């Protein structure tokens, strides 16, 4: 998914690319695809959000249910992203640096949330923690409500964003090898010093990119959270769920107002990605 290595500046004076009409035609076609298919929807979000006027936009954003959704989304991201970051770095170190039995199986389990439908992820948690679930009744007896409550939303978000940091950091660590770490250890650094002074700085771009991706998905997750949260307005509706609530109420302009905030998040994510690529190219 990520390419943190420099792009070689291939000039294309060769075979298939050397005819100017072919080159211009292909570039034009690709530009048409990207603008119609990707840029147009992105632009439309902002047009539809601001078409009723800035006053209406602001009224939609500052509605109590929407501000509650924004707070909930920020809270969920603030809890899940650090958890997945710590786990991701540990898992990447383990898998990049050690050979052990079951390594491939572990990697497959870490990747699994990428392959499982978010709805199935939510379903699994409902089956586990629901009223008739395997752990649900016991937890309810002890006063812990998971389904239709914050813990369920957090668990669902951790599941769907589980592989992001691990995968990005793993790619970087595997590409870099461990010669510097071995040198630091030989020179008398402790394991922790080596990790903080050598490993983390070396893997920083992969780490930042993984965190950014994890955050974008945590704030934007729909399917898994939708299944487990119950969509209660002002309580268990995150921003993407609030978009659906408003749309189902025929408040399309308000839905687009909330959607535009999420689109800004997407734009920031893309901008950070470009910056990282550019920084990684000129260290």
């Amino acid at each position: 998914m990520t390419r943190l290595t420099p792009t070689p500046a291939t000039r294309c004076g060769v075979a298939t690319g050397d005819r100017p009409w072919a080159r211009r035609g292909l570039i034009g076609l690709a530009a048409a695809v990207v603008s119609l298919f990707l840029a147009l929807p992105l632009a439309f979000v902002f047009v539809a959000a601001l078409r009723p006027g800035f006053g209406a936009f602001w009224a939609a954003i500052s509605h109590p249910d929407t501000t509650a959704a924004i707070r909930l989304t920020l809270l969920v991201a603030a809890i899940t992203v650090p958890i997945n970051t710590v786990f991701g770095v540990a898992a990447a170190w383990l898998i990049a640096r050690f050979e052990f039995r079951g390594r491939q199986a572990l990697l497959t389990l870490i990747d699994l949330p990428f392959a499982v439908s978010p709805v199935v992820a939510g379903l699994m948690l409902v089956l586990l923690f629901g009223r008739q679930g395997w752990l649900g009744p016991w937890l309810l007896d002890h006063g812990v409500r998971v389904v239709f409550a914050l813990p369920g939303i957090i668990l669902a978000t951790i599941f769907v964003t589980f592989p992001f940091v691990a995968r990005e950091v793993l790619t970087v660590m595997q590409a870099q090898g461990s010669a510097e770490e071995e040198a630091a250890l030989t020179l008398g650094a402790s394991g922790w010093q080596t990790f903080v002074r050598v490993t983390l700085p070396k893997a920083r771009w992969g780490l930042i990119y993984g965190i950014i991706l994890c955050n974008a998905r945590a704030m934007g997750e729909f399917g898994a959270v939708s299944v487990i949260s119950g969509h209660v307005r002002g309580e268990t509706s995150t921003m993407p769920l609030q978009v659906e609530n408003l749309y189902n109420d025929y408040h399309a302009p308000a839905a687009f107002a909330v959607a535009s905030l999420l689109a800004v998040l997407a734009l920031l994510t893309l901008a950070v990605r470009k910056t990282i690529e550019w920084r990684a190219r000129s260290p």
Partner: protein
Amino acid sequence: MPARRVLPGFAPTMALTGFAVGVVVVLPLAGLVLQTLSLDGPAFWNAATSPRALASYRLTFGASLVAAALNVALGLLVAWVLARYRFPGRALMDALVDLPFALPTAVAGLTLTALYSGDGWVGRFIEPLGLPVAFTRAGVTLALTFVGFPFVVRAVQPVIEDLDPRMEEAAAVLGASPGQTFARVVFPAILPALVTGFTLAFARAVGEYGSVVFISGNMPGKTEITPFLIVTRLEEYDTAGAAALGTVMLGVSFALLLGINMLQRWGDRRGAGRR
């Protein structure tokens, strides 16, 4: 080969990773499997193969196949242009390719629905032509193509960048037409990446929910995808029915994940053979 236990940190990272994978992935998986095992055979079979479920599989897998195939065509074009040509706006195009990864699926669904419905910017031009998209199977396919768009581009683009231009020059010098050069020299080299991209886009499309619920209209038997049917069953408190459908989807995900791993190994071998 990683050094065996020369580096510190095996025990703590193993403990942390094992705990996290156990709680986050294995425990919920076990919950679903146990729930399914507690169903008796005929009940499972009836829930998993009801006419409504079969119609939802046909739509989910059919639309995902079409979407992944469209992504191969569009993705190859965009990857080729990004890898081979330098032109104004190239950086912007490169950044936009990742938009479907970054944009929440609910936003994508909402926007595509508004654009392609009868009075939308695009819908008002194509609906009079007899091509309704919103609330049809075409709409489902459109949403799935959108969410899977980056996979083929990002799988193929680095492979095209790594191709040795001398191979193509040699083919041209030996009298091959540009078409022959592409078919005999370039295409075999990028085939594993194309297949990997196709499978990744397909796997993503099969599980997709957020963007489709808006644009499909969710009519049972017509535009209802399997993930939506699972949600419906849960809302009807039909936990067993939802678990049966979820197990079918999970089985497909496992098979696809295995397939992707095998494809990537195939690609690595082909790449190694070429260097």
